[in-house]
């Protein structure tokens, strides 16, 4: 057995790393406190929202939903054959599996926004490019999750069908697929929910949806109109989350539906998908040429090695370190605020109305696109990585809180009740019976968020909030494809490193 590092040493090491990262990103709480009035400036100007603007917002909001529905459905569907080709227990040459997994890993390194920017070069401006980006983004994540599920599913029934002479595909759909279906649908619903949020900002790079209008109104400082958009986005995200929770309950057999209801639901889902897909505007290929694609590919495959090895704050190493530091500090700060909020949002610890109120507030926090937070924090702290940290922290509060509340709702209360029956105070029961059970789940959610934030941190550059994003987007807009190649290589390496690290942490925490 390998020797394990003692926990206090691990904790001290992590704290040191956090402090170094906080110093590196220029975290300055004093500055924030002295300029705290600016925090509420924009928020105050958003109210009352301009309701006359509604007519202009609704079609674009629909385009946003359309992009996420079609993108998620297509990406998730394509992920099934890809996952079959990647999964170790299914037949197929090993080399091909390795290659496919490598490609998935490469795709996973990029956030939806960067994929959308790339898509606009091929498919022109508009929702088609956005839908393509959401499809690829969903495809990469779903493939990975699905082949991991296949690998951990029991193989007995599959082997039995194969032994009876069934073809691999038929045996898969008759044995393994029903086994992984609940997890597959749950993941797809999760992604659908997240993709609505992602789609809402794709307009910033011209890939359709409400983002373009949001960007315009923000830059013209018409904050009452921004308020209208944000309120509508909140409504959509709120509805989507409730729908997705309801459907997840159905998928996991926590609630049931009669056969007629099931047929109706399936019919409605198919109809929605078909309608969303058929009404998508066609791609604008007028500016796409073979030559452009060639330049792009040759640039990306010939990275700028000078940038790769450059020292100083414009070199790749510095940019990656900055991105990782922003993600680390942002996720940690977010988690610190998310823990108490998650308890307040759980009806197992607080009365139902209180829990509902806090859940709704957290949903509202979650529904605001991160660029809006970026803009608010830039007013407070100016451009730079500290703004990135704050932006990511607020976004993480919203998303982590959801995961944490789910963990609390699934808590086994027996030990808690036993301590309560002995006469221990409530706080002591939480500390000694609930937290020890929750810690591994919280850690796992934190790790997942950190993994995602590493990618998201690279988009912060759009708001001037530091990290690798600003130079990457600049290079893409200037068609400097060799630089794009270098920066992309760096992002792939970073996301790979974090992936390995988190796999190791998961094993260690088990």
């Amino acid at each position: 057995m390998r020797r394990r590092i003692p926990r206090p040493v691990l904790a001290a090491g992590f704290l040191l790393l956090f402090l170094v990262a906080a110093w590196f990103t220029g975290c300055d709480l004093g500055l924030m406190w002295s300029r705290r009035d600016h925090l509420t400036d924009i928020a105050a100007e958003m109210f009352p929202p301009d309701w006359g603007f509604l007519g202009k917002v609704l079609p674009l909001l629909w385009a946003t939903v359309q992009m996420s529905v079609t993108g998620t459905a297509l990406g998730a569907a394509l992920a099934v054959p890809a996952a079959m080709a990647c999964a170790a227990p299914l037949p197929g040459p090993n080399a091909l599996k390795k290659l496919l997994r490598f490609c998935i890993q490469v795709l996973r390194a990029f956030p939806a926004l960067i994929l959308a920017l790339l898509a606009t070069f091929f498919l022109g401006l508009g929702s088609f490019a956005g839908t393509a980006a959401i499809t690829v983004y969903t495809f990469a994540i779903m493939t990975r999750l699905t082949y991991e599920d296949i690998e951990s599913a029991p193989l007995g029934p599959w082997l039995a069908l194969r032994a009876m002479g069934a073809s691999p595909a038929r045996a898969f759909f008759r044995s393994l697929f029903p086994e992984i279906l609940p997890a597959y649908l749950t993941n797809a619903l999760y992604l659908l929910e997240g993709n609505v949020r992602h789609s809402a900002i794709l307009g910033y790079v011209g890939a359709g949806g409400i983002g373009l209008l949001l960007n315009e109104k923000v830059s013209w400082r018409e904050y009452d109109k921004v308020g209208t958009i944000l309120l509508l986005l909140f409504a959509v995200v709120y509805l989507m989350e409730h729908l997705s929770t309801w459907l997840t309950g159905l998928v996991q057999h926590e609630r049931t539906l009669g056969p007629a209801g099931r047929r109706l639901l399936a019919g409605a889902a198919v109809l929605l998908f078909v309608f969303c897909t058929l009404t998508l505007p066609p791609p604008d290929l007028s500016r796409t040429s073979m030559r452009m694609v060639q330049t792009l590919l040759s640039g990306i495959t010939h990275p700028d090695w000078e940038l790769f090895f450059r020292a100083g704050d414009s070199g790749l190493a510095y940019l990656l370190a900055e991105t990782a530091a922003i993600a680390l500090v942002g996720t940690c700060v977010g988690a610190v605020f998310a823990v108490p909020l998650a308890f307040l949002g759980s009806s197992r610890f607080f009365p139902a109305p209180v829990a509902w109120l806090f859940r709704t507030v957290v949903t509202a926090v979650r529904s605001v696109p991160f660029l809006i937070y970026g803009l608010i924090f830039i007013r407070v702290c100016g451009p730079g990585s500290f703004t990135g940290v704050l932006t990511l922290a607020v976004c993480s509060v919203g998303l982590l809180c959801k995961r944490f509340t789910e963990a609390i709702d699934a808590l086994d209360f027996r030990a808690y009740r036993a301590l309560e029956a002995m006469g221990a105070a409530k706080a002591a029961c939480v500390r000694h019976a609930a937290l020890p059970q929750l810690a591994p789940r919280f850690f796992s959610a934190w790790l997942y968020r950190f993994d995602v934030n590493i990618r998201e941190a690279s988009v912060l550059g759009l708001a001037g909030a530091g990290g690798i994003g600003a130079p990457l987007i600049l290079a893409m807009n200037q068609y400097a494809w060799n630089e794009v190649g270098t920066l992309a290589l760096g992002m792939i390496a970073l996301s790979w490193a974090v992936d390995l690290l988190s796999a190791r942490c998961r094993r260690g925490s088990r």
Partner: protein
Amino acid sequence: MLQVIHVRKQFPRAGEVLRDISFTLGEGEFLSVIGPSGAGKTTLFRILNGTETCGGGQVLYDGVPFESARGRAKRAVQRRLGTIYQDFCLVENLSALQNVLSACLPDMSLAASLLGAFGRERTERAAAILAEVGLSDKLDEPVKDLSGGQKQRVAIARALMRDPALLLADEPVASLDPVTGRQILGLLRDVQQRRGVSVLMNSHNLELSLEFSTRVIGLSGGRIVFDGAPAEVTEAVLRDIYGGAEAAV
């Protein structure tokens, strides 16, 4: 030490679950409450450990009314009770020692309990009690890695850590195999004799209940139909408690 006087309990759907239950439990007694499913054993148990209120009557611990006590007064009585559950109710990913130490929480200041500062004296006492229940080599083992019998030993150690006057055991061997179940009841009897603690046990397992207890109460349909020594439990008594079917077996 424990007096149960005319206790009743009614639930909106299930109707009257306990009808006029009265008995007293003396010091150092090992009392088993037996009866078929739905006889009211679990409800009685919950009323006795304060997790359920009673619909009428009184529960007195050393003459102090418990069923009407709230807040500090209730906790003062609860501190003298040790409870053992069928499903152990331990924190699975904490060590055996930490689980036993959690029994000290009611006596500690809020700050100390939040910091988990149990102190050397308590830690040594917890280790000694774990040794007493035969787990001296499992102190730092996470509970999830222990067997069912070992988990129940940890739960007994946690209850003993409170130095209780009365041990309440709710189906303590129902999740265990017969051999381990016998060992656990043997341990409970040892503890009862060595420390002079009273034990009140709910059990489905007739054979073990008769073998280990000093007194048996039979519940049927929410009433006490038998109260006496195990030796007095005859076929006729069993028929009264369980109805025809089980006595024939």
